[in-house]
């Protein structure tokens, strides 16, 4: 059987060896971090965004790189999921975007702060995370599908603010599923006249007080642009 001094040596030698390896690996890690995290893209705005992230303790509810609270969504790849327009709108008044749902504090950010946060999140989204978060399975996933990536802002034809809608509605098979799919709605027939849709967009609750759709605070020109786009889409089909 091992003696006490033998056990002590085992402890001391093991600890020293592991400690030294750990420090060696730390050096390798720090050598790799700049390229894996695109340090060159870390501009003033990104750094300000990180400071806001820290000062407001966003990590107290959300995870970022999988670290934080489990109360609110994981945000590592949020900029793939949501457009800047959507995020911008959301951060101005989070509760408005999810009426009656789990609440996020309204921090009353200035426009500049919102830009910084979005830039920070975009930078985080490009970190090489060895594949986290994992791609969800298709199949059953598609049936339940709500967490689809919305790359709609890259679609030049779409009005910029359309991406706000696609957080909840689908168009061409992509988008959220909290609201009815635009692919299924019959724009221009029944009650869905252009005037009705414009009135709805202006203030959904005025028409249907208990609707889950938020008032997106769209201006008249945005509404005109969006409805024109949607109604043209139908005509083209």
């Amino acid at each position, binding site marked *: 059987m091992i003696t006490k001094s033998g056990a002590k040596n085992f402890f001391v030698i*093991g600890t020293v060896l592991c400690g030294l390896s750990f420090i060696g690996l730390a050096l390798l890690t720090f050598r790799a971090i700049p390229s894996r995290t695109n340090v060159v893209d870390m501009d003033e705005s990104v750094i300000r965004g990180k400071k806001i992230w820290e000062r407001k303790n966003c990590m107290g509810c959300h995870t970022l790189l999988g670290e934080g609270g489990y109360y609110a969504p994981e945000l590592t790849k949020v900029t793939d999921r949501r457009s800047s327009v959507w995020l911008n709108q959301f951060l101005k008044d989070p509760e408005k975007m999810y009426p009656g749902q789990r609440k996020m504090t309204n921090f009353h950010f200035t426009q500049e702060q919102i830009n910084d946060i979005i830039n920070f999140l975009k930078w985080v989204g490009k970190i090489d995370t060895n594949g986290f978060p994992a791609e969800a399975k298709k199949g*059953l996933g598609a049936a339940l599908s709500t967490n689809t990536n919305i790359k709609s802002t890259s679609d030049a034809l779409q009005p910029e603010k359309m991406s706000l809608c696609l957080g909840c509605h689908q168009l061409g098979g992509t988008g959220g599923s909290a609201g009815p799919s635009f692919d299924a709605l019959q724009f221009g027939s029944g009650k869905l006249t252009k005037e009705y849709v414009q009135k709805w967009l202006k203030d959904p609750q005025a028409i249907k007080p208990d609707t889950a759709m938020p008032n997106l605070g769209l201006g008249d020109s945005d509404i005109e642009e969006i409805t024109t786009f949607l109604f043209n889409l139908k005509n083209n089909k």
Partner: protein
Amino acid sequence: MIRFESQRVAYWFFAVSMLLFTLQLVYGFIMAFAHMGYDVLHHIIPFNTARTVHTNLLLMWLISGFMGAAYFIIPDETDRELIMPRLAYVQLIAYVIVGVLSILGFHYGIWEGRKFLEIPRFLDYLVVVDVLIFVLIIGGTLWSGKITTTGSVLFFGLLMAALLYLPGMIDTDNQTVDSYWRWWVVHLWVEGVWELIMGAILCYLLLKLTGVDREIVEKWLYVIVAFTFLSGILGTGHHFYWIGTPKFWLLIGGIFSALEPLAFLGMAIFGIAMARKGSKEIINPMAMYWTLGCSILSFVGAGFLGFAHTLPRVNLYTHGTLVTAMHGHLAFWGAYAMLILAMITYAMPKLCCNPRHVESSGLNYFAFWASNIGMISMTLAFAVAGVTQVYLERIYGMDFLAVQKEIEVHFAGLILAASLFTLGILSFVINFIRYGRPRARVHDMSKDYIFDEAIDSICFKGEENSQERDNEMDDDEGVYDDTEEFDESDLEEIDIEDDDEYLSDEDDELDYSESSSMFDKNYGAYSYDKNTSKSYDEDDIDDDDDDDDDDCRDDMDGIDDIDDDEDRMWNIDDEDDIDDDDDDDEKGTYYDDDDID
């Protein structure tokens, strides 16, 4: 029956622990209700505040418990008073002030959003100073006293824990680097140096409770902490899989963290083996319950549930989900929370000179089972919620909030389980309060043995004694007069008798049999010269109004004083005396009929 005056400071650290622990649970409930959809406090205490307070209170009460444990154990192990005992009280007060400021600040958004390390930078410096004072007192005491393996492993763990706080204070603009250093604190604490503290405290408790040979116990301590560092240091890699650090961590972190459960398995086997080997009659069974509970559940919570999600293939899906919360709860509970509760259960009868565990073990027994069954059920509730979340959100791609709606019902289960848990903890706290304040007489070790033995035979065991007592009870109408048999004769004897005579029959007190000359030297040191603090000199004791319990020692030396002393516990010759003692009226009750029967 503490052996050194300065050990008493431990009581106050334990009291702070109990208070902060209770508060921690309140914030747990706030979060559990929020998860269920009842975030009614959102505008006063939003979730991030509740979470930050919950986890920081956890760390604070555990650390306060460690400090108390160290202040209790180190004098005992080193055979001397703490150096600078008054500074220990200053350190306690400073600790409480920093804690209160941090917790208040969290409610006003004064924090750093860095999970577990939310204390703002300017308070970090105060934490560091405070902990340095603590380490200085413990280290200095160890340095000038007897150095045992248990004592030095404990000190090494505490010192390293203090030093490892520093990487968490490195400023950086890069989120990945920020996270990297954060793990040096969080992981290297709970899966590294805290395990040393845990091993040392377990070792101390097992030594005291089982009476197994010190050589054997301490050999195992070395083996366990060797495994801890062999696996735990490189095991840090399991937090470096996905944060932007290189891919080799998947391999290294995977392999080494998979070995981490071995250290906890070691603790479990160690605890059980020593308990079975022990020949000593266990006079404080609840301390043994908590000690074994700790060594076993730490393996389940940290070892088994940690292993369950430590391999990269699994962790890719479970990372940052409620599965982590499941593991976090049982690991902290099993390894560290129960450890502190074991230490408190062991130390309180000694600190308060109040062996209530005879008649109060019922409350502690209830606390043990309620809190453990509660916590295991909470873990199950988190597990079901977590696994569901992993499948629906991570594997099948459902929207986060939609999944949260699906699992709301499991938080109802969590709240139920947490209620049972809280009931257990409240019982523990009530039991703690009922012990009363620290008022133990202090004994130099020559008298310690007799004292222990005397209390044991009267209060805990001693078949013939209880027979005798029964008889006397009848005669004296329920009043047991033990003065003759005990006070005068025994105490007088203690004073007269030569130290060496005690050594001969101390077969279960390892320390003393090791070296008698050492102990003579310390006896002298204790009373007179080397002691740094004057207040402990015999002559000064009555002047010391700071600490009204000091006069205990007078009782030891002069029996005459006893009648004037309201708080005494030896002079139980008069029922009225017991009832008068409103401060802590349970104290005398172990002389009641019920207990003796």
